[in-house]
């Protein structure tokens, strides 16, 4: 094992070690907890950059270092699971994004969490999250990915429920976990189905193993892949399992920024990019993915324009942007188009959340944008940095969002005109809700006392935001981007497509300016249907209450009167049988010798009676 084979293992396990240290010794001092956690994050970041600059392994060499976890092949049984880390181009790129963003968020957390409860528990949770996330990134097979996928879910649960004393936080954590379970169930089924038909969990072998399926009987492959895609629907908050993400905003803001905007929710997209060569063989699966992404991207945008909680607006924008990425998997010619937007989005969305966190701290934990206003003078740095984030999110050139989002929309044009209009329309919505947020928070008159007394955040919070702002400015520039990504460009896209996108962008911005720049006291536009999120949450609530409640009542009835009866009956039978056997056990030697003889006769009967 040479130096470069050890690096991935160190990257993976450093955060776990830090999590254990913080958990056990974090009580000693706050400074120690934060220090250990930040050290681990920065270490993984440095190592990831080192890994990035080491030459890629030859094609087909696997590029990973694996150890057999369970390998029964030497014993004539075709069953093997490896624990191995994949360090190909895709995982290296994702490592860079995750560790860089994580390091910045860890540092920012020192400022944000300074006065909060559960300081070391928070950092232990963050470290656990980082470990799990890196596990997903480095996993070389579906089993490992699924394990870490669930671990990410656990750490997300822990972090959303950080203020578990608050009922809404505990509920949100529970909901995030449960909703994800729905998606993960499909994911697991998909993994098992692929394994059943292709006989492998390994990503490196998957393409070759699924090729036979891609031919005549492509429905099997399509169903398996759509089931796998269910994992993405859950984790990346696509319709119809998007409801948990806005509620997850109950967690501390840095958590929202790292987990629920930049990295964890992107894991679903990463997974799709990872199996993209297989997806390509199934046009049906690609179509499903594209439409789920497209619809999510548009509807989340509609919901976003009528929210009043600063973090929820950003949460819907996250869902919408994830929709773009998922759609890109479905429409674009290679997985890197989606990854390009993932990288850019990670930077600017993380920035936006951190800025929102800065506003929230400045406002003493007020999150309603209609209680803010005029913060541009009180919080000049946050104002500036969030402006950069907003421009990047809207896709204004030369900010990074422009390059990747335009590319995706152009691919949509090539692939399907319906998807094109949906995704282009979402640009208008994106711009509208982004600048609605920006104008209401930073311009106009202060709308509450807290807004009048707002103050700028400390340097430890501003600096990570500044770094991210720099990254969101430059990460999309073709001159720089070609060093790290090579998204395919569609051919034959007429010039007016770009004009349409610009037009939507401008209309959105002008609309936001007209409606919100003057500093209205309350929202001049009221669309309850959007504000209430199309009543999807209510339908789910009703469904859970009535359907699940009713079903539970039936289950309870069956359980009590049928299953319990069966269980008790079989328990009594088993017990009685055991008791009878016990009677045989008389303790009498002669009896035992007799049984022995009887047993011998039985055995001879079995052996000789053929």
């Amino acid at each position, binding site marked *: 094992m040479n130096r470069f084979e050890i690096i991935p293992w160190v990257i993976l396990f450093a955060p776990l070690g830090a999590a254990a240290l913080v958990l056990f010794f974090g009580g000693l001092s706050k400074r120690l907890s934060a220090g250990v956690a930040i050290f681990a994050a920065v270490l993984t970041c440095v190592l990831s950059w080192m890994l990035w600059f080491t030459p890629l392994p030859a094609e087909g060499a696997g590029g990973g270092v694996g150890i057999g976890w369970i390998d*029964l092949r030497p014993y004539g049984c075709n069953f093997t699971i490896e624990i191995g880390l994949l360090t190909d181009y895709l995982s290296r790129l994702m490592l860079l994004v995750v560790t860089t963003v994580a390091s910045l968020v860890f540092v920012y957390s020192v400022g944000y969490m300074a006065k909060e409860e559960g300081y070391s528990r928070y950092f232990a949770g963050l470290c656990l999250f980082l470990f799990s996330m890196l596990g997903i990134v480095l996993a070389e097979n579906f089993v490992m990915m699924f394990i870490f996928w669930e671990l990410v879910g656990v750490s997300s649960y822990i972090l959303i429920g950080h203020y578990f004393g608050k009922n809404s936080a505990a509920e949100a954590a529970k909901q995030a976990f449960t909703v994800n379970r729905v998606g993960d169930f499909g994911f697991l089924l998909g993994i098992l189905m692929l394994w059943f038909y292709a006989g492998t969990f390994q990503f490196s072998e998957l393409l070759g193993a699924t090729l036979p399926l891609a031919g005549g009987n492509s429905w099997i492959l399509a169903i398996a892949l759509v089931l796998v895609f269910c994992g993405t629907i859950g984790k990346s908050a696509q319709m119809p399992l998007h409801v948990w993400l806005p509620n997850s905003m109950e967690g501390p803001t840095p958590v929202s920024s790292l987990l629920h905007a930049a990295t964890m929710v992107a894991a679903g997209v990463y997974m799709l990019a990872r199996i993209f060569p297989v997806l390509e063989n199934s046009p049906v699966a690609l179509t499903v993915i594209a439409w789920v992404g497209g619809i999510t991207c548009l509807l989340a945008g509609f919901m976003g324009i009528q929210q009043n909680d600063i973090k929820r607006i950003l949460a819907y924008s996250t869902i919408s942007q994830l929709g773009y990425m998922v759609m890109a998997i479905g429409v674009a010619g290679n997985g890197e188009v989606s990854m390009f937007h993932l990288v850019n989005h990670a930077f600017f969305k993380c920035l936006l959340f951190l800025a929102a966190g800065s506003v929230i701290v400045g406002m003493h934990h007020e999150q309603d944008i209609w209680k803010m206003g005029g913060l541009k003078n009180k919080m000049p740095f946050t104002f500036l940095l969030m402006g950069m984030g907003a421009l990047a999110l809207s896709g204004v050139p030369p900010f990074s969002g422009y390059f990747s989002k335009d590319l995706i929309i152009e691919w949509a044009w090539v692939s399907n005109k319906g998807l094109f209009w949906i995704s282009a329309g979402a640009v208008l919505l994106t711009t509208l809700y982004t600048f609605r947020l920006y104008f209401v928070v930073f311009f106009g008159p202060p709308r509450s006392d807290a807004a009048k007394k707002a103050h700028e955040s400390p340097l430890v919070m501003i600096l990570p935001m500044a770094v991210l702002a720099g990254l969101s400015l430059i990460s999309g520039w073709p001159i720089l981007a070609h060093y790290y990504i090579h998204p395919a460009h569609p051919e034959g896209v007429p010039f007016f497509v770009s004009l349409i996108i610009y037009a939507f962008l401008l209309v959105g911005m002008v609309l936001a300016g007209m409606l919100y720049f003057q500093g209205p006291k309350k929202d001049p536009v009221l669309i309850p249907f959007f504000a209430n999120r199309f009543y999807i949450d209510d339908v789910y609530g009703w469904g859970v209450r009535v359907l699940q409640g009713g079903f539970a009542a039936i289950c309870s009835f069956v359980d009590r009167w049928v299953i319990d009866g069966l269980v008790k009956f079989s328990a009594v039978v088993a017990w009685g049988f055991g008791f009878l*056997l016990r009677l045989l056990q008389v303790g009498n030697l002669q*009896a035992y010798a007799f*049984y022995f003889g009887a047993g011998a006769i039985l*055995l001879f009967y079995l*052996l000789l009676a053929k």
Partner: protein
Amino acid sequence: MNPILLETILVCVGFLLLLAEAFAGGVRKSVFGYGAMVGVFGVFVLTFWIDAAAMNSEAAYSVYYSADDLAVFFKRFVLLATFCVLLMAVEFAPVLQKYLPSSAGGAGLGEFYCLPLFACAGMMWLVSATDFIMIFVSLELVTVSFYVMVAYMRKNALSLEAGVKYLILGALSTGVLVYGIAWIFGILGTTNLVGISQAVAVLPPEKSVGVLFGLGLVLISLGFKVAAVPFQFWVPDVYQGAPTPVTAYLSVASKAVGFVVLMRVMDAFFVAPYYGDRLLSTVAFLAGMTMLLGNLAAIPQTNFKRLLAYSSVAHAGYLLMALASVASGGAGYAIAFYLVVYLIMTMLAFAVTIVVSKSLGGDNISDFNGLSKRNPWLALAMAIGVLSLAGLPFTAGFFGKFFVFVSALDAGLYWLVGIGAFSVACGFYYYLKVLRAMYWLPLSIGESENTRCSISLPLGALLVVLVVLTLALGVFPSPVFALMP
């Protein structure tokens, strides 16, 4: 190093300790226990230096003694089991002392530490034996040592009774074994397993029935050894009556070598399909009965050692299931892995039982009541032990069962897997009874939470090692595969 030196050294250590014990009057008896442990551990270390090529292929012993991978693996297994048993024996000495004729300062304890060495040497020979004569002689060495050890607590009626039962039924089974060997020898003219497998391959069918009869007798005797139903009736009484370390020894090492001999004997007959099919279907039937009966009969038990006795029968059933699927390829790995896991978790359960029974004077399940309040860590160790015995994921026991079931599925024994699944479910019921006693039931009346069980340092260390192994192998079982034959 010549492999046969291993057993020789071990027997010499045993004799030396016996002699030293006779002449060194004033020495504390536990010294001999530790001496025996050092001897066992030394031999264990030596197993890594043996070289099968050093055996003189001209020498007479080379036809009945083999030092193949299987043998070496199980020699190490037996040595480790003996080491654990000796450690527990030292811990158990005060209880033992109560039931010895002379209760004065350790009188009569010395032999208790030497006997396991002889039994261990016998088992090491047994796993190497490739000839029925060798199998018989070493089996007798093991059994005779066990007769003495089981009946060691001479003033305890239960222990004496167990000893007598074991002696008489054991003698019966030995007789059956000899009879079987005689039949096989009478028809085939050889007792050597290699010779037998050559002879049965060319044997005319009309003579095969006699060989099959002989084989049946051997199977009965070995079934008795591994506690397969319907030859398991001695197990509960003997397990309950014997001193606890001896029970552990019986249930782990004795059973394991029984399976090794079974594998070797069955292997010799597989060359002829006439035997192979009949053997496998018989073993599969025994497996089904053993799993069912072991698990069902365990349910109403109230004594923990008796419960473990039935659980030991049940585990023999799972092992037989793997044995029944041995023809489809290497189910041997499943047996070997299961035995390793079984060693770890059974030793864990018995070690905790020793601690509890030493402090509280009993080994009923009710003696575990409220243990979590007295000794939380001890209760946790026991909890991990019984959960592993039940086969919960993330414990070693899970992978043990998993591999057995995988190999049975590979062999197409679906009905047996069904019975196995049902048995495992039953298993959860009675194993969790112990958990319930420790964590949910209140202490018995008149006992206070402050009477803690004291754990000596060596036994505590053993417990920690066993717990760590149980959990580690439950997540990552590969290291065992690396050592496997």
